[in-house]
């Protein structure tokens, strides 16, 4: 029987990271993945990630996937693709379907890194073609280049729902609405805001009660829900859509752990049925580990660190690193994980809805949670929004404590400060002079930074904003300025379009609007 010291199941962010860590130590490792390309779900992620430099912040998911792959390749990590692990048996034996047969492998250690599957909610007609998972929409548009539909209802306002809504818009689809049964937006406010400003309405405390149609979706009926999530009769609304996209969270894909007879439990905080793990990620079956979403739903950034952390324990237990080296590595990975797990959206805060102020003591925007965008009054509580200065300067509409700090690194003049704790809100340092380069605008993964210049143009105020759609406006174009809710505000003229390599496909577009609209105009629609 073929034998390796370490078998990693799944070549996604956690699995690849684990294999890289193990291979670096000199271990004999093999990775199996059922897909025809590695990277797991990273290649569906075309948005910029949060976190800090060490977490690949402001890099797009698929780019992170590419660099992980390059690193694995450089080290000579063996990745078997189109290799479906079918089962885990006694004595850490694994069967793999590859090349038209079933192959048997044994290992001293196994890391299960099989990721997650999407949750679903049932409703009348949810089996009609045209009702799809948000991940399905991503796969179709970002991998296959095919639009999942033309008019789409997004069910779920968590980060997946918000990010996929934005991606649908980028793919040229219309998003009719984002709805959520909860009374508040579940994902990051900045993700909601960038969707809302394109004009997509948010219906919170709403659920989908029916998909209309016979052999394809021809409409969706939504209704308001009461505090017990029951639809309120008489509040039904029919939306003209051809696709209903479900984004109601993920569940660990833990079948292999269960198949291996690891002790399992349904742990809602971890997103579903998971193997019970030691602090190092080991199951009750010695030598079988879980890493990444299969161990508990988090972000790809955490999965990569977890993969390395778990693999470092494997390295230690197989004698490739000393106890001291392990402790150092483990502590640094835990520290990096700790940074990502802070703030209002930390796993420990899952389900909490009692935040009323930020860590800085600023009142949390209720409108952002209820409608997906903030009011000017609410924004005025935040100094980085209220910053005023002659000439060009940033205004930052980042109002929740999320783990992210690329803006701090982006500014060549060091105008923006987040500080050690990366969940703190960015502050504008008045001593430094903004040169209007727009790098902060392009680097903000939440697209929450704008540049404002009230004095340089006699005909109006210049507002620069991030733009990731086609066609890209050109200087001199005339169109409509939109508010944070996507409502038309006034006429706008494009005065500048910056698009450099370092901005990584996020164009920084500048429009001129009359002075009275400087606090309301935040987006642009071509005529």
């Amino acid at each position, binding site marked *: 029987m073929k034998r390796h010291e370490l078998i990693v199941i799944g070549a996604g962010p956690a699995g690849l990271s684990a294999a890289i860590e193990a291979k670096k130590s000199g271990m004999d490792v093999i990775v199996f993945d059922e897909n025809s390309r590695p990277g797991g779900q990273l290649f569906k992620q075309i948005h910029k990630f949060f976190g800090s430099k060490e977490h690949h912040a402001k890099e797009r998911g698929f780019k992170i996937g590419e660099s992980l792959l390059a690193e694995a390749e450089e080290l000579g990590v063996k990745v078997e693709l189109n290799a479906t692990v079918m089962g885990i048996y006694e004595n850490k034996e694994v069967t793999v379907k590859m090349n038209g047969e079933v192959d*048997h492998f044994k290992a001293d250690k196994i890391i299960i890194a099989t990721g997650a599957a999407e949750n679903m909610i049932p409703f009348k007609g949810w089996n009609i073609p045209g009702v799809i998972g948000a991940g399905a929409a991503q796969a179709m548009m970002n991998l296959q280049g095919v639009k999942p539909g033309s008019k789409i209802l997004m069910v779920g306002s968590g980060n997946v729902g918000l990010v996929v809504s934005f991606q649908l818009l980028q793919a040229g689809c219309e998003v009719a609405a984002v709805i959520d049964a909860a009374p508040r937006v579940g994902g990051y406010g900045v993700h909601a805001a960038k969707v809302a400003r394109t004009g997509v309405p948010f219906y919170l405390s709403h659920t989908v009660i029916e998909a209309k149609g016979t052999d394809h979706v021809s409409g969706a009926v939504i209704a308001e829900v009461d505090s017990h999530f029951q639809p309120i009769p008489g509040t039904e609304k029919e939306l003209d859509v051809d696709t209903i996209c479900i984004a109601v969270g993920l569940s660990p894909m833990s079948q292999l752990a269960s198949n291996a*007879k690891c002790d399992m439990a349904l742990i809602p905080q971890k997103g579903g049925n998971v193997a019970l793990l030691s602090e190092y990620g080991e199951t009750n079956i010695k030598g079988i580990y879980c890493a990444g979403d299969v161990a508990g739903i988090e972000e790809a950034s955490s999965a990569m660190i977890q993969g390395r952390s778990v693999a470092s324990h494997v390295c230690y237990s197989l004698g490739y690193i000393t106890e001291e080296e392990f402790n150092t590595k483990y502590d640094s990975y835990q520290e990096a994980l700790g940074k990502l797990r802070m703030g209002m959206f930390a796993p420990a805060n899952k389900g909490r809805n009692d935040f009323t102020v930020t860590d800085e003591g600023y009142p949390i925007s209720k409108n952002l949670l209820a409608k997906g965008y903030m009011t000017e009054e609410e924004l005025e509580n935040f100094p980085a929004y209220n910053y005023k200065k002659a000439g060009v300067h940033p205004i930052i509409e980042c109002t929740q404590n999320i783990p992210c700090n690329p803006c701090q690194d982006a500014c060549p003049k060091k105008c923006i400060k987040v500080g050690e704790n990366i969940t703190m809100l960015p502050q504008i340092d008045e001593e430094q002079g903004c040169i209007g380069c727009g790098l902060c605008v392009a680097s903000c993964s939440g697209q929450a930074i704008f540049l404002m210049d009230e004095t340089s143009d006699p005909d109006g105020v210049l507002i620069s904003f991030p733009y990731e759609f086609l066609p890209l406006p050109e200087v001199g174009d005339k169109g409509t300025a939109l508010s944070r809710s996507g409502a038309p505000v006034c006429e706008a003229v494009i005065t500048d379009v910056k698009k450099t390599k370092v901005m990584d496909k996020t164009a920084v577009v500048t429009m001129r609007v009359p002075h009275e609209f400087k606090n309301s105009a935040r987006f642009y629609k071509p005529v």
Partner: protein
Amino acid sequence: MIEKRTADVIIIGGGIMGCSTAYRLAKLGLDVIVLEKKEIGNGGSCRNAGGVRQSARDPKELQLAMYAVANIWPTLSEELGVNVEYHQKGNIRLGLTEKDVKILENHTAKSTKVGLDVKMISGDEAREICPYMSDEIIAASWCPTDGHANPLKTTLGFYKRALDLGVTFISGVEVLGIKKIKGEARIVETDDGDYEGGQILLCAGYDSRRIANTVGIDAPVERQVNEVLVTEAMPHMFDIMLGVAGGEFYGHQSEHGSFVLGGNSGLQAFTSNTDHFMTNSLTAPCISRGIMKYFPCLKNVKVVRTWAGYYDQCIDVLPIIDNIKEVPGLTVAFGFSGHGFGISPAVSIALSELMTTGKSTTIDISQLGYDRFKSKG
């Protein structure tokens, strides 16, 4: 509500024997509690390939099978109000070699001797019954009155009817032992405290031996792994129960369309795994190779799961169904050796008579006593 801890009968084991006997005893007006360690039907009851077979059975237990096929199975779905998916379309046992033919002829001779309608047929006759077979098949034994049913639905159907008739089932309770009071088996000790019955029926599959040991009763029964693979649903191809002389696999196509095919790798008896229902990496490929020899047309049919279960394999491959004389009040039914499902509806009749009248009169089970095991010399 006061928790129920006493009854006329305490049944240890919520498998098909326990559920069906609880049903029959409740029908006779007895108050019954069934204790189950895990879930209803978790052991061999829900882990078998559903054969309702008389052919190739030892004459000592054949009566149970023939009685069940003649009197119970045909109307069981109506009786339980649950479709048990019983199909009586025959059992065919296939042979590829002369050696296979000898095995089949031997079984056939034994069964015809005790009055069962079994005969040898040619390969072509076999292909007439089931046109999907390989041309390599040279002969088969054929028992037209055999069939198959859905063990999951049968077990849970008995359970449901027993509930309807007032039986209390308590699951998640592990039996630690049986205690005698004034010379009679009365108390069932569990990790959840004591339960008391006028009589106790022990039908806990392999665990029965450990529990019987607590009152000094033993039987030569050991645990053996059995594995089954289940395929995706396919268009309806055949109704018959299948077996092969070489023993590579057995099973049927279910009403649902999936093939349910059991078998082994030949290494089962010495598995290192004794704690979990865990499949072995060699078994499914082995069953698959067996299938390919007889039914090459199933090549592209996809396996969707495999599972393992345990036989409570008795030394003479026959069950022990008896009242224990030395321990009055204790009745046992275990050691079914992997072919208890088909006879279970009849076993429960024998058990209900044993427990209420002291003797099984409808079906002769006199050769299945607990004291039949003797030393070799």
